């Protein structure tokens, strides 16, 4: 069950502050230097007030590829023609994106380059301004949290206790690890872990009515035929479950942009991130659910 949207424009920032996250920017906005690494809450508040930013919560346990997904998005958006006719129009956290991309860059000169796991203490609000073909730019604020919080959610800790900003997020990206799906013995664990995140959202009863959910397959570039089969088997269940929150939920496939010939997944993702809000709460009817079950092979 969803709760109505809150009228307060800064509600998610308030929630973070109440949760003890420090607003460490100067009080005088005129003295503020944009942090570059990650947005401070003061910056986020001001951006929300001035431009109406959109909060995107990346959900997935450690190693699922949340950071790599964001780095891929940043990398690809830097191309002159952007993604799916959506172009980069700025970032207040370019340094933060670069830091995340660094671990995966060949030119780092390391034979075993790795995206470093995001620590719980890492600054986590990343900003990207995107201009869709329609013209008006959209300010996206990504919450890139360490994976341990999602492990606790999966283990049953109350979602809002662990993730107070979940109640105020505009978009949820639930990440499914394509590499794990391709690993014998790991595929169903990966799918189950993603499902637990969706169920935690559903059961929290605190998701905004206009919030939208996408299931993102990461590491599509290393997906094996077995992983592909696992994806096809599990994603309908994930989408079906997510429709309890967002009747228009979708799935995208993403991989590292320089190795995936068709970066359609990233384009689809950025289009989805910038698309308008749902204008009404679309609750699937019983008939639609049955039809959906039939379409996805989930008939009882």
């Amino acid at each position: 069950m969803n709760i109505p949207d809150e009228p307060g424009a800064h509600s998610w920032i308030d929630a973070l502050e109440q949760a003890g996250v420090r607003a460490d920017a100067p009080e005088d906005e005129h003295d503020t230097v944009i942090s570059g690494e990650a947005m401070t809450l003061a910056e986020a508040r001001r951006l929300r007030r001035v431009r109406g930013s959109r909060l995107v919560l990346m959900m997935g346990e450690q190693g699922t590829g949340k950071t790599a997904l964001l780095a891929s998005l940043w990398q690809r958006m830097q191309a002159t023609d952007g993604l799916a006719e959506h172009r980069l129009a700025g970032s207040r956290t370019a340094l933060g994106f670069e830091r995340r991309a660094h671990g995966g860059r060949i030119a780092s000169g390391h034979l075993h380059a790795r995206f470093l796991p995001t620590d719980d203490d890492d600054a986590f609000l990343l900003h990207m301004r995107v201009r869709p073909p329609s013209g008006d730019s959209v300010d996206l604020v990504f919450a890139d949290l360490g994976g341990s919080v999602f492990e606790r959610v999966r283990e049953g800790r109350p979602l809002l206790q662990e993730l107070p900003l979940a109640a105020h997020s505009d978009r949820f990206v639930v990440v499914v690890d394509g590499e794990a799906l391709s690993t014998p013995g790991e595929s169903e664990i990966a799918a189950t872990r993603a499902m637990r995140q969706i169920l935690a959202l559903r059961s929290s009863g605190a998701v905004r009515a206009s919030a939208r959910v996408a299931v993102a397959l990461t590491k599509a570039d290393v997906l094996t035929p077995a992983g592909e089969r696992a994806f096809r088997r599990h994603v309908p269940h994930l989408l079906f479950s997510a429709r309890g929150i967002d009747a228009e939920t979708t799935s995208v496939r993403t991989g590292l942009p320089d190795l995936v010939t068709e970066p359609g997944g990233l384009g689809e993702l950025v289009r989805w991130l910038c698309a308008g809000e749902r204008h009404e709460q679309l609750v699937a009817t019983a008939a639609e659910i049955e039809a959906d079950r039939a379409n996805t092979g989930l008939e009882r």
Partner: protein
Amino acid sequence: MPRSGKSTYLGTLWALVQSPLDRSVVEASFSGDRAYVQRLADQVARAQEVERTTLETGGQLSVTLDFEANGTADLLIPDTSGESLRLLFEQRVWYAPLRGICEEATSMVLFIHPEHVRVPQPLSVLGAVARTSDGEAEASTATITFDPREHTSSSAELISVLENVAEAREALWPVRIAVVISAWDTVDGDPTPYEWFETRVPGLLSTIECSPHVEELGVFGVSAQGGALSHRDELLAKGEIYDRVFAIDRDGGTVSVTEPLRWAIWGS
């Protein structure tokens, strides 16, 4: 950023303003302190390395110029130290004079040196987080520590700077931005300046073109020395400054070296 060619351009500009051979821009008033730019112009004329602008030594050109195509303009052109931008990007500190300039500027000329550009490197398949045999994510223990100065692409660096500039002059935007790719004689191949910009600093191009803070973008390739200082004799053999320097517009058409400044003031 440091060593991007700003002072050399200023020296060449001043030399051309005074040159009877280039009449595209002339000095309309002879008053004012010209010591700083005169010194820069002399260094360019001798094909010497132009003194590096530091936070302490930054000068400016305050002058009334008469542009053949458009008319007279009162100009205040500060030779901002690249160090002040580096301070902003790396230390997140506004150098007060730079902030004042950004708040008051009516046009901007951004210099990029092709030999100092760091292009975004591709991501590797090895970038996937390693897994242990039991499937748990494994933190890398042997990675190269991220150093913003060394590992950040020029594009990201300048996007970050522009965001701060936009923030500082929010009430005054939009502004016209001329991008000058300096030392154009060192660019490989035969790209137009726009093509070069698109290839080497794509994220910045996209940001400028899509930013609501930017009114218009101009791109120029400028060789404000006319060649490499390491081949000084060869350079001087080409003749005086007017004979050896050159500039091209975004599509590769030949223009005066003074054109980026004229464009920054009046636009297309």
